[in-house]
């Protein structure tokens, strides 16, 4: 019997070690996997189920021990990493617009691309939780801006539109802000820290 000690390892390492061992084992050979991590314990069981391997839980305390015998054929469609991902929530990302243009280069092209970006975002199946606007990005949320309608529609879909107060002040646009709310550096930092992804158009 093979013993694979994965104590101290975090997902997906225990699953990868298990897979390596399985590949080296001969048919009907038995293996015991020792784990000390609840998440890896749960994920390994899902992984073995996907591989169509019948396993037994020999112990759950103090360490967790899973035992199985290698079947004749090991199927399985997914990689170990696939069992360890954090499930993505639908709107766990924020869009940060740090200038009124998309990318750097010709300003007129950049402005056109930004409008197209916002209109595409409206049709995206996965919407962000917030759109943060700073520096010249705040110009997009000002009265008469040609991006205003798009931002309003995004706001109606439940997305927070937040403009940097210092920037509105600097460009003297505070009175003309026409969509969303005014925010500060703490909030801008906090929203980006908490998001699993940040998108800069």
């Amino acid at each position, binding site marked *: 019997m093979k013993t694979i000690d994965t104590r101290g390892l975090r997902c997906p390492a225990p699953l990868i070690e298990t897979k390596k061992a399985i590949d080296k084992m001969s048919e009907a050979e038995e293996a015991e996997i020792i784990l000390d991590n609840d998440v890896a314990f749960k994920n390994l069981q899902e992984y073995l189920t996907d591989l169509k391997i019948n396993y037994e839980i020999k112990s759950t305390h103090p360490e967790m021990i899973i035992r199985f015998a290698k079947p004749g054929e090991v199927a399985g469609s997914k990689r170990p990493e696939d069992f360890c991902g954090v499930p993505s929530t639908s709107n766990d990302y924020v869009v940060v617009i740090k200038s009124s243009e998309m990318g750097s280069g010709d300003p*007129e*092209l950049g402005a*056109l*691309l930004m*409008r*197209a970006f916002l*209109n*595409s975002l409206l049709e995206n199946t996965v919407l962000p939780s917030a759109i943060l606007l700073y520096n010249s990005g705040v110009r997009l949320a000002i009265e008469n801006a*040609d991006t205003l*309608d*798009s931002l309003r529609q995004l706001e109606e879909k439940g997305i927070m539109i937040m403009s940097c107060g210092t920037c509105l002040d600097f460009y003297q646009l505070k009175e003309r802000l026409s969509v969303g709310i005014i925010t500060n550096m703490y909030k801008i930092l906090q929203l980006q820290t908490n998001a699993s992804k940040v998108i800069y158009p």
Partner: protein
Amino acid sequence: MQMILLFPNVREVMKADRILKDNGLKVQVMPVPERISSECGMCMSVAPELVSDAIRMLQVKDITVECYEI
């Protein structure tokens, strides 16, 4: 129903955008729908009742424009 205006290239889109803006006509810039072209092109979406006005304003300025219903 949505009407879109297609142009030969992005520079024409930008010219058309300026012309229509000067004429007080509202358009939405958007990427060309993938089933029309897989290239990264830009087009404009216009309210159906404004399409004929828009085309007239552009043709006066020699802009080549095609209209699609999507």
